[in-house]
């Protein structure tokens, strides 16, 4: 029988309930496992080549993480009374501190996905172009210099 592995969870001193859940143990593993299982799911649904499946996962990951981390602003709780209404989830993370472990992990994941996707498709077009666009946009959005920057006023509204 597999022995039960226990982890200790210290409640983090983060007042923002929208981002606090990311500081618990097991989040990174869950993220990676979700990506892996969605690759398996795509493979089983469409019976395509593994490379195409990774490209699909990479692009879906791009769309979902861009929408939730860098587009949607505010928090899903009305008790916060809109103090975070002009900050995206990425900007709220870790109370705005840059270059924390969580942020570095989240910035590395799109790059690793890009490497896996381009390797398994043998660097062929058009997949390579799409994957490159995805990784460039995601990594630029996560740079510390882009904190609270809205290019051309996109997404600066309510």
């Amino acid at each position, binding site marked *: 029988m597999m022995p*039960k*592995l*226990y*982890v*200790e*969870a*210290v*409640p*983090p*001193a983060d*007042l923002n*309930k929208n981002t*606090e*859940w990311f500081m*618990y*143990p*097991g*989040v990174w*593993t*869950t993220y990676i*496992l*979700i990506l892996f299982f969605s690759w398996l799911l795509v493979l089983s649904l469409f019976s395509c080549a593994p490379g195409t499946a990774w490209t699909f996962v990479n692009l879906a990951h791009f769309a979902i993480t861009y929408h939730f981390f860098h587009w*949607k602003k*505010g*928090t*899903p*709780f*009305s*008790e916060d009374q*809109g103090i975070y*209404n002009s900050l995206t989830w990425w900007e709220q993370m870790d109370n705005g501190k840059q270059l924390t472990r969580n942020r570095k992990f989240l910035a590395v994941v799109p790059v690793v996905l890009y490497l896996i996707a381009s390797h398994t498709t043998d660097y062929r077009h058009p997949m390579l172009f799409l994957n490159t666009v995805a990784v460039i946009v995601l990594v630029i959005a996560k740079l510390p210099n882009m904190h609270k920057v809205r290019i051309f006023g996109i997404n600066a509204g*309510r």
Partner: protein
Amino acid sequence: MVRLPYVTALTTLFSYGLLFAFGQLRDFFRKIIDWFKSTSKDLKGYAPICLGLEDFYTRRLYLRIQDCFSRPIASAPDAWFDVVERYSKDNNKTLHRTSKTSKCLNLGSYNYLGFAAADEYCTPRVIESLKKYSPSTCSIRVDGGTTDLHTELEFLVARFVGKPAAITFGMGYVTNSAIIPVLIGKGGLIISDSLNHNSIVNGARGSGAAVRVFQHNNAPHLEEVLREQIAEGQPRTHRPWKKIIVIVEGIYSMEGELCQLPEIIAVCKKYKVYTYLDEAHSIGAVGKSGKGVCELLGVDPADVDIMMGTFTKSFGSCGGYIAASKEIVQYLKHACPAQLYATSMSPPAVQQVISALKVILGEDGSSRGAQKLAQIRENSNFFRSELKKMGFEVLGDNDSPVMPIMLYNPAKIPAFSRDCLKQNVAVVTVAFPATPLLLARARICISAAHSREDLLKGLEVISKVGDLVGIKYFPAEPPKHGHQAHKKVD
């Protein structure tokens, strides 16, 4: 500090991810359907009350399990009470009451000393005061709302807690959220424990002072935060802070843990900051004579600057109090909006607290107060040790009457709650946002009114439901020595 199996952490995160994904999907379809149905803006130029995503959690997660919260009861919250049955035709979006009730074991009320139901000493006196003073003073304290009952209560509370003077308010929540802005304002610093109650958070936000948080019950981290803040001073100007207050609670109601008061007071004295102790759950429930956390941990009440408490938990009444030095109480009487604009406490409620305090102090001529205090301590320790032996993860320190049982997965919250109700045990389950996201729990509150048979029935039901739901995260102790353990406790 909770210990959870790693696999449970992964499954909990995955479940929340799935719930979130389904909620977003439903919202997306709702937006499409709404766009088709009516392109007319009925808003007439007014802004919508809430943006679409603000109540996402309420709409998509809370409403699914709404029947586990806000259950109406039909009797006094004694050890056994009547719970009204409800049904829903549209998957818990709206609930309808029936006229049927079921008698359930009450493991959720803050009825620590058993004063919630009719009491042989308190109730006749309360009825008398109701006839003499009427249910409401219909006035603010400053105008005509201070009866001799109110002044008697303030003397009694000050004597009970061990401070020179006290002041009472009509509502416990308001005591925190209206006092903190009066004590400190812009240019001051509030350092509060990370798990403080919402009333304190509200008061701190409303005061205009800067708020910093220190790790729960961690005196070294408090010292670190204090040193950093005192060295930096106010933001941007770096001038010294006008005032620094550290706010902690006696018993944290979501963890059942006691505050590490001696260490925190030592740190505060070293840096000359004020301390504010919120004893809502600990006054009257812990300590040899019920005087709260200070008595239990051996801290002199004179070391804590402001002691706050409520009458709702151990005294079976409503309202709150602040006990502090004569100067502070005098200032509060003139400056606090809850004194100047809010109706004073209802006189029968005041009489209930006075009688309850007399019973606890033993001044009613019997030893029922000491009996109740011994009973609740015995009950809590017995219940907690039995639960731990069964393999549940129970938080909280010994002697604390609040014990949360960890559930973690979001699906176990309604499963545990509904299954217990089917077997006539009423428990309170707490989820996000009252607790951190991953750490959902069922919170048990033990009362002095529970007899040994009640506790055994509760344990039996919780054990059965725990097996069904799968929350015995730790290995259970074998019942080999159960025989001897029972002998020891009795």
